[in-house]
C-alpha cells in the first residue's frame, strides 16, 4: 500500500541540536464559554523524537495541537517550533510544521493532485518542484492511481493518506498527526506505521495523538499523558512502562476448573471454566505461579496480557486523577 520513500524527502537539514523541536511554556487556554482546556502546561519534544501525546477525550490534546498549528488562539503562554515562536515568528515556525488533522479538512470537490499542489503553493514552492514532490508522495502513499479523482470519491483510508501527502509537501521538520489511524483497517494501519517510522528515521520529528495505545507503544520513544488540561506525566516509554508494577495476565488452562485455585501472592479469578485472570507483581514474576499451578495439576495452554501494557498504565494514571 505504501511505497518506500526515496528522494526528494532525504536531506532534511538539521538545526542546532540543542534547540527543541517543540517547546511549550505555560500554555493556557480558556474558551469563550469559560471552559479552561489547558491550565498552563509545559512540554518539550526533542529533535528527531517520535512522541505520543495521550489523554482521554476532552483532556486538552487537540487544543494543544490546535494552538501549535495556529488553528486555535492561546489565552496565555509561549510555543516555539525549532526555536521559532508560533506567535512572534509565525512564518518560520509554520514552515517547520506539517499537520495531519483528525477530521478531513480538504476541499471535497477538488482533485487529489490539485489539493496537494495547491498546498505546496501556499508554502511558496515553485510549480515544478511542487509537482515533482506531489507525484513522489502520491506514489509513496499509494494514491498515484487516484491522482485525478475528486477527493470526495476516495475511501476513508485514502483520504487520510491524502492528508499525510498534503502535510509532507513542504517537507516539514516536524509532523503532527492527530489520530492518524482512526477508522482505518489493520493492514493500512500497519503500513502507515512503517511509513511514519521511515519518515522519522530520516530526521522528521513526529508528534502523535492516538487512542490506540498499542500504536503509541509500538512507535513512540517518549510519551506525555495529558488529562483535564494538565500534563500528568512526560517521560520515555521505557520509564513509563517501568512504573507498571502489576500486570494482568489471562491464562488458558486445562483441565476445566469450577473455582479459582488458591496460590499465595497471586490473586486469581476464574472467567469461564478454562480461563484464569491473575494480577502479577513484577517482583514476583511468573515462574512460581506456573510451578504451583503445575503442582495442583493445572496446565497452562497459553497466556497473554489482558490489555496493552501502556493501556493499563494509562487507565491507572487517569483513574487516579478522578
Amino acid at each position, binding site marked *: 500500500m505504501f511505497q518506500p520513500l526515496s528522494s526528494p524527502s532525504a536531506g532534511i537539514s538539521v538545526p542546532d541540536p540543542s534547540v527543541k523541536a517543540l517547546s511549550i511554556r505555560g500554555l493556557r487556554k480558556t474558551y469563550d464559554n469559560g471552559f479552561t482546556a489547558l491550565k498552563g502546561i509545559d512540554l518539550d519534544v526533542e529533535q528527531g523524537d517520535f512522541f505520543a501525546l495521550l489523554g482521554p477525550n476532552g483532556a486538552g490534546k487537540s487544543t494543544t495541537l490546535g494552538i501549535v498549528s495556529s488553528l486555535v488562539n492561546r489565552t496565555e503562554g509561549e510555543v516555539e517550533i525549532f526555536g521559532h515562536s508560533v506567535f512572534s515568528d509565525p512564518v518560520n515556525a509554520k514552515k517547520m510544521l506539517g499537520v495531519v488533522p483528525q477530521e478531513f479538512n480538504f476541499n471535497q470537490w477538488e482533485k487529489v493532485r490539485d489539493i496537494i499542489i495547491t498546498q505546496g503553493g501556499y508554502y*511558496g514552492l515553485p510549480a515544478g518542484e511542487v509537482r515533482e514532490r506531489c507525484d513522489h508522495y502520491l506514489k509513496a502513499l499509494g494514491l498515484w492511481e487516484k491522482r485525478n479523482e475528486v477527493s470526495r470519491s476516495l475511501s476513508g483510508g485514502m483520504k487520510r493518506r491524502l492528508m499525510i501527502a498534503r502535510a509532507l509537501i513542504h517537507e516539514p521538520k516536524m509532523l503532527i498527526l492527530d489520530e492518524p489511524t482512526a477508522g482505518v483497517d489493520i493492514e493500512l494501519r500497519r503500513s502507515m506505521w512503517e511509513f511514519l517510522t521511515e519518515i522519522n528515521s530520516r530526521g522528521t520529528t513526529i508528534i502523535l495523538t492516538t487512542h490506540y495505545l498499542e500504536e503509541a507503544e509500538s512507535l513512540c520513544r517518549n510519551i506525555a499523558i495529558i488529562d483535564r488540561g494538565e500534563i500528568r506525566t512526560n517521560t520515555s516509554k521505557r520509564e513509563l512502562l517501568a512504573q507498571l508494577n502489576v500486570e494482568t495476565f489471562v491464562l488458558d488452562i486445562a483441565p476445566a476448573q469450577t473455582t479459582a485455585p488458591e496460590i499465595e501472592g497471586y490473586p486469581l479469578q476464574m472467567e469461564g471454566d478454562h480461563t484464569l485472570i491473575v494480577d502479577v507483581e513484577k517482583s514476583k514474576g511468573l515462574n512460581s505461579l506456573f510451578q504451583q499451578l503445575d503442582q495442583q495439576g493445572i496446565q497452562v495452554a497459553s497466556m497473554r496480557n489482558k490489555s496493552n501494557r501502556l493501556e493499563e498504565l494509562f487507565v491507572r494514571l487517569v483513574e487516579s486523577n478522578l
Partner: protein
Amino acid sequence: MRIRETSIALYTIVYREIRRFLRIWLQTLLPPAITMSLYFVIFGNLIGPRIGEMGGYGYMEFIVPGLIMMSVITNSYGNVVSSFYGTKFQRHIEELLVSPIPISIILIGYVVGGVARGLSVGAIVTCLSLFFTDLQIHNIWVTLSVVALTSTLFAIAGFINAIYANSFDDISIIPTFVLTPLTYLGGVFYSISLLPEFWQNVSLINPILYMVNTFRYGILGVTDIPLGIAFTIIIGFVIGLYSFAYYLLRIGKGIRQ
C-alpha cells in the same frame, strides 16, 4: 515569507479562486448573463421607449451602465462570500491557517478572485448590451478605475460577511436585504434628479449611487454626483473595509477558536 514565495502563494489562491468559478460557470457566469439580458429586453426594449429620455439619453443607453455595475457588484460580493464561507464550512480554511501565508495575502487573494469574477461577468454583460445599444465610452480611465474599485470594495464586503457567517442563511441575508435594495435605489434605473429634494438627499447616503453614477459618467458623460466626491467616498470605503477585514483575520474572528 520572501517576496517570491509570497507571490507564488498569492498566485495559488487567485488561481484556485478563478478555477473555482470557471468550473461552476453554470452557477456563476451564465445566470447573470440571462438575468441582464432579460433586463435589457424588458426595461430597455419593451418599456424603455415609452419612458423616453433619461439624463439626455435613451432609456436603454441610460440603464446599461447601471446594469453592468449591478452585475459587477453582486458577483464580486457573491463570489467571495460563498467561496470563503465554503472554505470555512468544509474546514479547508485550515490549509491556509497552518501555512506561512501572511493574512494580508489571504485577504488580497480572495478579493482578487472576487474582482476577477465581477469583471468577467461585467465583460459578459457589456458584450450582451452591444446587441441592444451602441456603447460609446466617454472616459475609459474613469470607467475602468471605478469598476475596478467598486468590484474591490464589494469583494472585501463579501469577505467580511463570510467571516461573520455561521450558516448558509447568513451569506444570503446581506445580499438579499441590504445589497439588492441599495443597488436598485442607487440610480441604476433612474436619475435621482427625478426624486423630490428630500429623497435626493436621502439617496446621497447610499454609496452605490456614487459608483453607478461615476461609471455612467465614464460611459455616457453624465452623472448626478461630482467625480471627486465619488472617488473619495469609494476609496475611503475600500480602505476602511480592507482595514476592518484585516483586523478580523488577525484576531481570528470566525476562523480560529
